[in-house]
């Protein structure tokens, strides 16, 4: 049976603005299925985003949504969660928004281990602003601001999140469509900061400058790059060269920030 996505979308918003073949639409469908699985409803869910192609996503979804300043989605989401701890807060954003302009907010949201889910759509470039290189653009690849190749080493967003203190970190790609909703659902259920990195394709500003002839080529690259973390243990270092691990990369239980803060309030008010 065809899945009814339109029940969770604002009427009259489709077709969306994303370019032909952009994986953000696939991630959005995954998010809608995951929210359905977890039983999230309009009144108890806040979708927060910053600026960018990926950050347009909450505009289409019929939930409580908050479209904020560039890179500041995690900071606004922290505010929402602190003021209304009963809300399910989900942040949607891109790699430029989350790790460059909002890098500081991103690592501190991870450090606090506040109970929210951050879905970071890594398309290796700044799409909306004109194809400038981002911290995730692979070394040597071309962007509008690096026409002779990008000299910078790249961020590994998942490792960054683990290092910063996030307690649930998972990675998948836009090709692995069914894994997207499973991981987002797991992240929503996790008590604490959940980072789900989804490797994505940007055919318009990244693909055409880097010799991908079509959207399908970009999708096949994502398929070839991904190695399930469960299978990686049996592979040699040579086989893992140029590959990225997918699946749940890290999970642990730590005290959650809103609960800790409630204890501070109780102490300050002299409640025993």
């Amino acid at each position, binding site marked *: *049976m*065809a*899945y009814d*996505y*339109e029940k969770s*979308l604002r009427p009259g918003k*489709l*077709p*969306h603005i*994303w*370019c*032909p*073949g*952009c*994986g*953000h*639409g*696939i991630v959005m*469908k995954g998010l809608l299925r995951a929210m359905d699985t977890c039983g999230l409803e309009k009144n108890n869910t806040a979708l927060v985003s910053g600026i960018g192609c990926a950050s347009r996503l909450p505009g289409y979804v019929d939930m409580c949504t908050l479209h904020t300043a560039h890179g500041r989605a995690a900071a606004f989401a922290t505010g929402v969660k602190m003021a209304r701890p009963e809300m399910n807060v989900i942040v949607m954003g891109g790699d430029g928004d989350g790790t460059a302009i909002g890098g500081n907010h991103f690592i501190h949201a991870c450090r606090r281990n506040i109970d929210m889910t951050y879905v970071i759509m890594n398309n290796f470039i700044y799409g909306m602003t004109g194809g400038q290189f981002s911290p995730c653009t692979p070394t040597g690849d071309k962007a509008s601001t690096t026409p002779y190749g990008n000299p910078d080493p790249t961020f590994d967003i998942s490792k960054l999140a683990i290092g910063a203190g996030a307690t649930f970190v998972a990675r998948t790609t836009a090709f692995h*469509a*069914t894994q997207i909703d499973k991981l987002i659902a797991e992240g929503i259920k996790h008590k604490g900061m959940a980072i789900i990195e989804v490797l994505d394709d940007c*055919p318009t500003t990244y693909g055409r400058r880097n010799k991908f002839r*079509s*959207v*399908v080529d970009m*999708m096949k690259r994502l398929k070839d790059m991904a190695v399930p973390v469960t299978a990686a243990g049996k592979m040699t270092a040579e086989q893992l060269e140029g590959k990225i691990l997918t699946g749940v990369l890290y999970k642990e239980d730590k005290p959650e920030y809103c609960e800790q803060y409630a204890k501070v309030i109780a102490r300050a008010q002299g409640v025993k």
Partner: protein
Amino acid sequence: MSIEVIERYCKGCSICVEFCPKNVLEMDGFIVKVARPDDCIKCMQCELRCPDFAIKVHTD
């Protein structure tokens, strides 16, 4: 069983055409067309992968 293509939403990226295991779909200019509906095995790959919400596979 029917495959519905919402032509107003389709942007012609051809992801569905490429990843259909039974070659049911093909491009008709910039819009996808259901060329061989009888071959469909209802695997839902096209519906799952369409970034534009443009394909629905009705199984009943």
